[in-house]
């Protein structure tokens, strides 16, 4: 039989190498934990690199011993000497390493979990399958939007997380760890963005049919830009400007959309679906699965079920195309 163990080692190293290559070329991405944009993510990444490095060395040693043992021509070892391998390698070494790891892990966890000193509070509710986002103001006032979270750079932001239906999990990989949203409970998470950019958040807990299609956009902005943006979001919707959009607004009300959606400044005050007051200003539609172009709005209204299986909103594919286009124009114009 050909050399058994060595090829295994080579195959593993090759795969390791390939993965490393991938890692070096492709860390970036809107939802990558490997290119952190928050303090939490950065500290966890440092921990990861240390652990991964150590793990690699330990693997090489363990497997190296196996390869050595499988060599046909090697000197024989006494059982007593081998026993020291068990005591040293199996008992003492892991105990020491794991103690260190635990100490680091506990210290980091205690830091990550403290919710003190938040500069801004945002309540996020996981719905099937989108995100209700409320910026909590000084008193009881709040500004609601959906599927998009904008954050000021360098501030500590406390997220207050819950769910009215099933368990979801709120995760912005670039900023930090995830926390579940559990019906009947309120969980908290503090994140601190350190880099301006556009990122993606996802639902990490399986929550039913379209779990895969429950994402959101995260935009980290300079603090002053953020204040402007939030002020705009707090305003009621602007009146439609074009004739097409005005027609679309009629269509919106004629088809009962207002029963589920709120557009502040109009009589639409439904609370089942996402708030659409400034939906046209958002970077994505349908929980970050479509852009906010008029064409995307038209597709979404006409083929909702097809785009997002199991969604509560009915498809309005039966409406005439002109009406769909008009509604799309109205909604995408809600800047």
């Amino acid at each position, binding site marked *: *039989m050909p050399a*058994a163990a060595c090829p*295994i080692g080579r*195959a*593993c190293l090759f*795969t390791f190498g390939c*993965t490393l290559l*991938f890692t070096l070329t*492709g860390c970036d*991405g809107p939802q*990558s*934990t*490997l290119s952190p944009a928050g303090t*939490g993510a950065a500290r*966890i990444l440092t*921990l*990861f690199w240390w*652990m*991964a490095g150590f*793990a690699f060395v*330990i*693997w090489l040693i363990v497997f190296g*011993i*196996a390869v050595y*043992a*499988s*060599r*046909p021509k090697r000197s024989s070892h006494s*059982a007593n*000497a*081998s026993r020291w*391998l*068990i005591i040293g*390698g*199996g*008992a003492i070494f*892991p*105990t020491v390493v*794991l103690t260190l790891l635990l100490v680091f*892990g506990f210290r980091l*966890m205690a830091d*990550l979990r403290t919710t003190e000193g938040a500069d801004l509070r945002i309540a996020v509710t996981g719905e*099937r399958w989108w995100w209700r986002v409320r910026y909590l103001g000084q008193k009881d006032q709040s500004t609601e939007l959906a599927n998009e979270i904008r954050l000021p750079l360098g501030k500590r932001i406390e997220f207050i997380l819950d769910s009215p*239906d*099933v*368990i979801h999990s709120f*995760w912005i990989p670039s900023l930090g*760890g995830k926390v*579940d949203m559990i019906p*009947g*409970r309120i969980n908290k998470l503090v994140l601190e963005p350190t880099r301006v950019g556009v990122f*993606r958040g*996802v*639902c*990490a807990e399986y*929550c*039913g049919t379209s*779990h*895969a299609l429950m994402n959101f956009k995260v935009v980290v902005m300079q603090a002053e830009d953020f204040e402007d943006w939030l002020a705009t979001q707090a305003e009621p919707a602007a009146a439609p400007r074009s004739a097409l959009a005005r027609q679309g607004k009629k269509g919106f009300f004629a088809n009962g959309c207002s029963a589920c959606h709120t557009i502040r400044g109009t009589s639409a005050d439904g609370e089942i679906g996402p708030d659409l007051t400034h939906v046209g200003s958002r970077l994505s539609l349908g929980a970050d699965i479509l852009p906010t172009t008029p064409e995307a709005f038209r597709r979404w209204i006409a083929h909702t079920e097809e785009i997002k*299986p199991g969604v509560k909103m009915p498809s309005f594919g039966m409406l005439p195309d002109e009406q769909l286009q008009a509604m799309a124009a109205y909604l995408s114009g809600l800047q």
Partner: protein
Amino acid sequence: MTDMSHQNQIPKNEEERRAQEARLAKPWEAPPGWRYWSAVNNTEVGLWYTVGAFIFFLFAGVLALLMRTQLSVPGNDFLSAETYNQFFTLHGSIMMFLFGVPIFEAFSIMILPQILGARDLPFPRLSAYGFWCFVIGGIFVCGSVFFDAAPRGGWFMYPPLTTKYQEGIGADIWLLGLSFIEIASIAAAVELIVGVLKTRPPGMRINMIPLYAWYVLVVAGMILFAFPPLIAGDLLLEMERAFDWPFFDPDRGGDPLFWQHLFWIFGHPEVYIIFLPAIALVAMIVPTFAQRPIVGYTWVVLAAVGTGFVSFGLWVHHMYTTGLPGISLSFFSAASEAVAIPTGVQIFCFLATALAGKFVRNVAMLFVTGALAIFVIGGLTGVMVAVAPFDFQVHDTYFVVAHLHYVLIGGVLFPVSAGLYYFYPMVTGKTLSEKTGQVAFWFMFIGFNVAFMPMHLSGLLGMPRRVFTYMDAPGYDILNMTSTVGAYVLAAGFACLVYEVVRPKKNQPYAKRNPWNAGTLEWMAEMPAKPWGARTIPLVKSRYPLWDQPNFLDDVDNGRFYLPDAEEGKRETMISTSIDAVPIQCLRVPGPTFKTFWAAMFTGGFFIFATYKWYTAAMISAALALAAILYWLWTGTAKIPEKREKHVGLGMTLPLYGSGSQSVGWWAMFITMVADVTAFLGLVFGYFFYWTVNEDFPPASASGPGFGWPLLAAGILLGSWIMTVLARRWNRQARSGAFYSALVTAIVFATAGIAALAAGPWLADMDPVSHVYPATVWILVIWTALHLGLGVIMQLYCMARRFAGRMTFEYDIDIQNVTLYWHFMAITVLVTTAVIGGFPLLT
């Protein structure tokens, strides 16, 4: 015990030896024709069980390939969201419940008696019953996918998704179908524990038993404590689905997290329940191919027992992100790291054995080496995810998918493949081809790494698990395509292995006896194996008798050990003490029957009809199942032997009957009831869990069962228990009248006690739908009442047995075991009444 002067059973010449072998073979032969399926012997049942588990494995593997096809490119529409969700739910559930655990039990049923030099396990019919339950439940669960009715809540079935937000019977199929299989798993665990403790050959003291048996003992013990909490959880979840009892509904005091606790108290030990037996195979294979005894036997025992314990302290590491207090997470993080120590010890024991001995190169060792390479990676990433902050990032991502497959494929599938190559000759008498094995290995090894190594990276790049599709992000397309290609290569490798196993080998000669030159008892087997399992039951003086005891096989073959003959034409094996393996009984085990098959069919009927909410049919089926089981017990157990003792060879005479703690049935009852009490404690845990999560529990406005009724119930029911104990004693003293009147009183008390127990919540009008408090009280009462009802049936059974003369003053297994059951009833009653009646007084 080894008086060599008495050698009257040892055959004097060839002719006598032949006659003896013929007499011995007769009772052990498998039944011919279609009656083959009535076999209960471990060789047949173990083989069916193993093949069944592998078929389910292949099915789940095909589902995985279809899922990988869907994920090969972003935004794919090969599978719909709902189909994909059903597939991933089934893939996980089947691999865990229909392959991972059963393959261990199946394999152990098949080889454990051989390893212990016994002829069969102590309860062959229980194995058969478990097997048929497994097949029926498995087909029911798997079949649902062809009707688009499969469960789609994930293998973890988190409510409220599975209670309120998924229509159809998928979740019921999962809950009831798998509960049914869990019962079969517990049955097998009971069988295996008693097997290891009581059926060892003379001389095989606790420090001599093969490591495989140590692992079996530990793993079966873990099943006993891990599965019952899940059964309790299944019961609660199904009560909520079927009758709207709000255990997991936060609006009525319930909490979805309670399910997660129950599920993972099961779910994490489950991983080790699957992993340890595979390591047990390695612990048999490595010494054989190192051609020397294992180095660090005690260390391996430490690792097995230690892992068994510590693995119960890990469950919350599946719940790191649920928002529990940091201090709680730290406890579980600590245990999750501690468990790495015994795991490491095992690996170093195997390495040390190889270093101190040889390293015979063949396919089995190739798979072992591959397993090491893969598993160590999985173990190391496991240490990483056990650090809570890191888990905050990668929890529920593809990183964890990669981790768990490195653990389970490296830690289970590769060792099992090695075990297949190693044990195949023992089962069929023929060896598998080395060449095909190498091809299969390399396809599997490369395919596996190509499929799963990139998943670490997709997870780190933020790709969540359980997604039927994904948006494109840098790297996702190439990583996922690579994984899909790898999955197909892995499947091709496995196909080679399957082909090699099933290809006809008519013309291939039988392997020589003990083909690997192993040292343990299972290799006494002749090629092909004879139906009796062990020609004689040997006297063991070493951990590796085939290496160390001179003339061993010759002595075995020539009837120079115990039980070389079957003069009465009965199936016989030896029962010994649990520590020092001193023989105490010659046990007659039952032969082929269809009774267990029918019992399983009706039991299955109950669960399947209940899925469709056909409750009348379900109840009829349950009654038939009970009748079938009673008939099976009545005709097949605690038989009074025609003589008191029997000469078993080498001058030893053993009793043919033992009752109380001398009987294997007593041990089985004890072990079963430990599992039962564990499930019960799961429900009690619920009561206190709801107390901690609710502001006021019991709610100030709610009426409770009061104190009086529970106290009365406790009094009367303890009376029933005392009367049962007295009945046992008076039976021993041959006082028939006292025996019967004690049991009648006990039955009256039990019935009155059940009524008093139910009267508390009933008279207080406690509505279980309104709030979790009344629901919890009712579930405790119902649990206790059902068990008491069963206790009454047992008391009646003892009276009937006594009346029919199947139980006597002296031969009293039945009443002994029933009394043991009632000891546990006393505990159950005390806890229930103290909780529902006493606890509200404290708050």
